[in-house]
């Protein structure tokens, strides 16, 4: 009962002239854009004094083809995957949550603030409680946007972006004030006790048990979104909100609920990042993850089972880009452009495949 999957197949055949030989005007325009973009990009790389071929191979090799690179990509993929799962739920419902960054920050801060009181508990219990605390915190921040939408009809795109700024500033103040490390050197908290850390799974990498959390979340969200009444109701609301209302679904409750759900997933991503990787909350520990996760969710076409794959892909791109910025004369902003071009190319290919 995967509404989204059906959606895709419908669009495939609903195109005007679905002749295999002739490309539709949109496809032609997309290809032209892509070719033009690639040429412009090659020109820019040449201007920066590098060979485009070398840059591209370096990027792909470092991101995907070395064991180190792959490990780093997976590390980066864990939070992206968790956030994207929540976003997929909300996008399926037609609710555009752009506020994962804020929800992540609030959830993590709530959990880290609780860390002191759970440190004495046996191993595992404390971690579990922190994961739950982060989810509750993120859910609450998401629910604020939900409440604004349901009560006042405020557009969630606007409110979630606004709430991102509020969250970022509150966190900035917290790590410089109430929960700052005792040394008061950097905007960050003290290191969390070892008993609260997620163990590393593979020797020599930084991949923590957060990987297990993420994979569990994939299975749970997949089941929730494709096999349950709740997931079905979300899909119906996203596809035809009027029909949802006529069939008795409460759009207000679904909207508030799904914003809380995606907030919870963002909070979970944040605390997993802290407990598994950094060991403390520091400012900017998850830069732009909420936005990258949107790309992940869209690349996976909101399919929970594809989200880990897309997350790994973007994680690899990030690692590869870092290598490019480190080893060549290509500056980092240009690397972001290359990244965008690769994603765009991928999307284009998948659109063309569906047209055919």
């Amino acid at each position, binding site marked *: *009962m995967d*509404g989204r999957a*059906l*959606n895709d*197949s*419908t*669009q495939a*055949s*609903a195109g*005007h*002239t*679905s*002749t295999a030989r*002739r490309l539709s005007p949109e496809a032609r325009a997309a290809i032209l854009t892509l070719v033009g973009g690639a040429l412009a990009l090659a020109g820019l790389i040449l201007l920066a004094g590098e060979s485009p071929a070398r840059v591209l191979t370096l990027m792909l090799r470092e991101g995907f083809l070395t064991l180190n690179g792959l490990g780093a990509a997976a590390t980066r993929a864990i939070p992206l995957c968790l956030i994207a799962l929540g976003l997929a739920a909300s996008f399926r419902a037609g609710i555009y949550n752009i506020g994962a960054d804020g929800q992540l920050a609030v959830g993590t801060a709530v959990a880290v603030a609780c860390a002191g009181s759970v440190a004495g508990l046996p191993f595992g219990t404390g971690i579990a409680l922190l994961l739950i605390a982060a989810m509750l915190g993120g859910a609450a921040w998401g629910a604020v946007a939900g409440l604004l939408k349901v009560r006042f009809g405020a557009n969630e795109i606007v409110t979630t972006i606004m709430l991102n700024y509020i969250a970022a500033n509150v966190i900035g103040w917290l790590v410089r004030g109430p929960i700052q490390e005792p040394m008061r050197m950097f905007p960050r908290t003290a290191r969390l006790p070892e008993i609260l850390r997620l163990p590393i799974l593979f020797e020599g990498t930084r991949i923590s048990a957060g990987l297990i959390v993420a994979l569990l979340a994939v299975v749970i969200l997949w089941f929730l979104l494709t*096999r*349950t*009444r*709740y997931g*079905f*109701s979300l*899909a*119906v609301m996203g*596809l*035809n909100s*009027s*029909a949802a*209302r*006529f*069939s*008795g*679904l*409460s759009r207000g409750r679904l909207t508030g609920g799904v914003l809380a759900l995606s907030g919870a997933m963002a909070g979970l991503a944040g605390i997993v990042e802290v407990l598994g990787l950094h060991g403390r909350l520091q400012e900017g520990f998850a830069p732009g993850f909420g936005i990258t996760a949107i790309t992940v969710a869209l690349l996976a076409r909101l399919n929970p089972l594809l989200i880990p794959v897309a997350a790994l892909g973007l994680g690899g791109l990030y690692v590869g880009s870092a290598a490019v910025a480190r080893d060549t004369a290509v500056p980092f902003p240009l690397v972001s452009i290359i990244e965008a071009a690769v994603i765009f190319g991928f999307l284009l290919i998948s659109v063309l495949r569906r047209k055919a």
Partner: protein
Amino acid sequence: MISGPILALDGVSKSYGDVLAIDDVSLNIAVGEVFALIGENGAGKSTIVKMMSGEIAPSRGTIRVLGEKVAFSSPRDALARGISVVHQHYALVPDFTVAENFALGTAPLGRLDRSALNRRIRTLAASVGVEIDPDALVGSLDVAGQQKIEILKALAREPRFLILDEPAAVLSPEDADRLFLAIERIRRQGISVVLVTHRLADVFRICDRVAVMRMGRLVVEGDVTNFAPEDLISLMMTGERGAALPSQPCARAATATAARGDTPVLQVRDLELHRANGSVAVRSMSFDLAAGEILAVAGVEGNGQTELVRSIAGLERQACGSIGFSALEGELSSHSPQALRQAGLAHVPEDRIHDGIVLTQSLAENLLLGHLHHPAFVRKGVIRRDSVVRQTTQVIQDYGIRTTGPMQPIGRLSGGNQQKLVLAREFMNDPCLLLAAHPSRGLDIRTSALVQGLLIEHRDRGAAILLVSADLDEIWAIADRVIVLSDTRMHGPVPIHETTRQEVGAWMAGH
């Protein structure tokens, strides 16, 4: 002077994957003729229309316009050759005004001259004899209003060839009359018209020639005068002339059925209905609806029918008056639509595509949509897929839905077949209160009879049925009592056998 057909299909076929929707059809449409295209639901009428108008391309065969072979790659190409179409499912932008929808696709780039546009729409509407407010939001109009706009839009393009896919299905008899007069007029100007319809009366009234489709094939084509209505019915159903037809629907069961109880299922008191734009649709209405009866709501559309049904379904709250539903305590408006449904209310909405189904979802999912709390379909929050699919397969059989199977997206079904699924869904689980807004709209003769039979069956079982219909034949065939909404007033209710069509017609006209 042009000779030969303005539009010709030559051995045209269309397949969707394994489905052969159109199988080797050849048709010629002459200049200045009104050509009827008829057939049962799913026969392929809309598919032919879409190929003529450039929306889809034939898989095989050729289309010629004035003798010249064409390969439309979009509706724009067809439009450039003077082919204008009114689709069965409208393509209007709900958040735009009527005028803005008019401008869409036709206005030149640059600033929109609104006053000129409004003037043009008013003249056009007046020439056809309908009333339209260019500044009204399309989303606030009912289906009949939207249909009128689509028709005016098509006329505004000054086509040489006009295609209308079931245009009259949603119109009131008066508006349908006006439409037919307009067709007469443009025919005299040498414009050809293709009319898709399920109403044989329309065929005999304004069409010169008729083509009968059945299961994707052209059964017969000829002058209307060569056929009697029974011939056409027989050809549509069986592909042959003079086949024995199934007996006419529902020889009206005895009106006073045993199931009819005395306690009303629905009690409406002093209800004041407001339209979306705030104007008063009905000042005050009161009636009871008992178990085991069909109460028809007649009247020109837009006189409060939509608002009445929505209020009873719990989708709209009215400022004044009260509604009571025997299955639930207290005011109906204090319950959620969900609670109402669970208490046994079912609702066939008037706007199927917009409110009734999710086009991209499968038949099975659309069936599930109305029954998300039914233990056979959902247990502990988990959907029981097998059981939903099994039930859908059953429904497909019972209602004769033309589909490749329960997992086909419902948007790929013909309009009538979509409607059958909605009806099946709402009839399931024996509702005690059924709100049916134009239930047989867009259905072929056979299926209309099936639906009317079902309504009677459920009434006799003891359901209370509120039937909104613009079709007096239907009302007279199955309703027990009738009320008429017109000019902010409610007339009736009166038992059908105590009134006449003349009286009801006069009420509808506001006398």
